[in-house]
């Protein structure tokens, strides 16, 4: 009887770790030769089904002459709201895919841009400001919502992944790595590490 209770506790703990409806995929990304391991996007390349874009826009700020966050992964169909928090006018344009130029707007104002299509994920859009060439950010459009961005120490965690076998890929603006096979399981987290090189 005592063994059964312990077993139930472990099972409960497992559910708490991985979430009630899906598995967890986590690990670390090493960006070789770079001062930080941040801003790598780890994502499932293809997941069966259609995924609705969020009803609320994702936000990318222009603050202290930088795009914040530097990298913003979104599921296809998401609208991104670009805010200017700086006292100087900013512009947003991208020379990638369908290309766009959203114009220039002052502090406190926003402009929305929908990322409605992506023929082959990831669709990477570099975000640039015409008047401040040092500014650079990225919107990474993906097929599904199972993605995460690494922190400075390289850690990432993708939660609520439907159980199954997938190809786990990683995108970084400066370094590259090969996709890896992964199995999502509600009973235990899958740990996948990447080493990216130029």
């Amino acid at each position, binding site marked *: 009887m005592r063994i059964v209770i312990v077993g139930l506790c472990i099972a409960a703990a497992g559910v708490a770790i991985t979430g009630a409806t899906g598995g967890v995929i986590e690990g670390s990304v090493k960006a070789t030769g770079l001062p930080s391991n941040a801003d790598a996007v780890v994502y499932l390349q293809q997941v069966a089904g259609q995924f609705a874009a969020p009803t609320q826009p994702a936000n990318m700020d222009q603050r202290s*002459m930088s795009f914040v966050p530097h990298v913003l992964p979104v599921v296809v169909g998401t609208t991104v709201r670009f805010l200017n928090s*700086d*006292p*100087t*006018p900013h*512009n947003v*344009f991208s*020379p*990638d895919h369908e*290309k766009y*130029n959203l*114009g*220039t707007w*002052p*502090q406190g104002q926003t402009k929305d841009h929908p990322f409605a299509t992506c023929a082959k994920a990831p669709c990477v859009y*570099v975000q640039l400001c*015409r*008047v*401040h*060439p*040092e500014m650079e950010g990225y919107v990474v459009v993906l097929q599904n919502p199972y993605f995460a961005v690494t922190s400075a120490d390289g850690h990432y965690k993708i939660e609520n992944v439907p159980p199954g076998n997938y190809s786990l890929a990683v995108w970084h603006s400066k370094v590259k790595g090969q996709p890896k096979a992964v199995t999502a399981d509600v009973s235990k987290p899958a740990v996948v590490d990447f080493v990216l090189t130029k």
Partner: protein
Amino acid sequence: MAPAVFVVLSARGMAGPAQKIGATVEVTPVTGPSTLHHLRRTIENSSMGWGGQWSPPANLVTPPRPRNPTRSNPALGGADLYRISCRACHRPDGSASPPEINSIIGPVQAASVSFMTDRMKAMGRQVDAAFIHGLTSANEADLRKRLRAGGHDMPSFDHLTDEEIGALRPYLDQMAGLPGAEKRQRYISEPPARVGELVVKGTCHICHDATGPDSAPTTVLSDIIPPLSSMPRQKTFLDFVRKVREGAPIPLGSAGVSSRGRMPVFNYLTEDEAAAAYSYLTLYPPK
């Protein structure tokens, strides 16, 4: 309405012949509060107006000379227009003092087709000419709109004529290091009254209100910046020119006591330009 004539005063204070102002240039008095006053800033907590230097040795002052100068109608290039209209805030190289004052370089480069094309190529992006043209023309429009209307903390420079902007604009390209800009430099002929107006509106008015009560000599020790309207009344022509270009100390009334005050030294203005500013303030009293 100011008379459409201007008595040319040389650096020696001599009156020259009356001269008609060109039909396309309307000289108007400087009006209203200074830029600093408008922004509720003090000269100490702002970079505005600090294009001048603090107490350079007078014997090292070597001001630039306008190209082909004549006493009656100096020829000004874009470099001269930048010097008297922009440099006080944006520094000699356009780098300015971010974040309070933004650099000119980025916006100017972004209006260049060749620069933006090279920038995209360096990023590994293949973009068509139409996209680049759309970007650069929009940025050119933004640049000119900013010049005309100002924006955020920058005052309007709507007093600049199309001809003046036409001369200034290629110099901004040259300052931004854009290839071939040297060959596009232009020079225009400006009446001295206009030169004085540009100096006052583009440099002096950053810190000095147009009008206000005359100041006593001792106010140099206070936070009060004397108005432009007081200059012709309180300074001789030569004192004004020396103060602007060399930072001459001001006598405070008691024997042997004088002070430089807080005013930077604008040694990059020529003697003729400082003289033109004084004459302009005399003939077109600030309002």
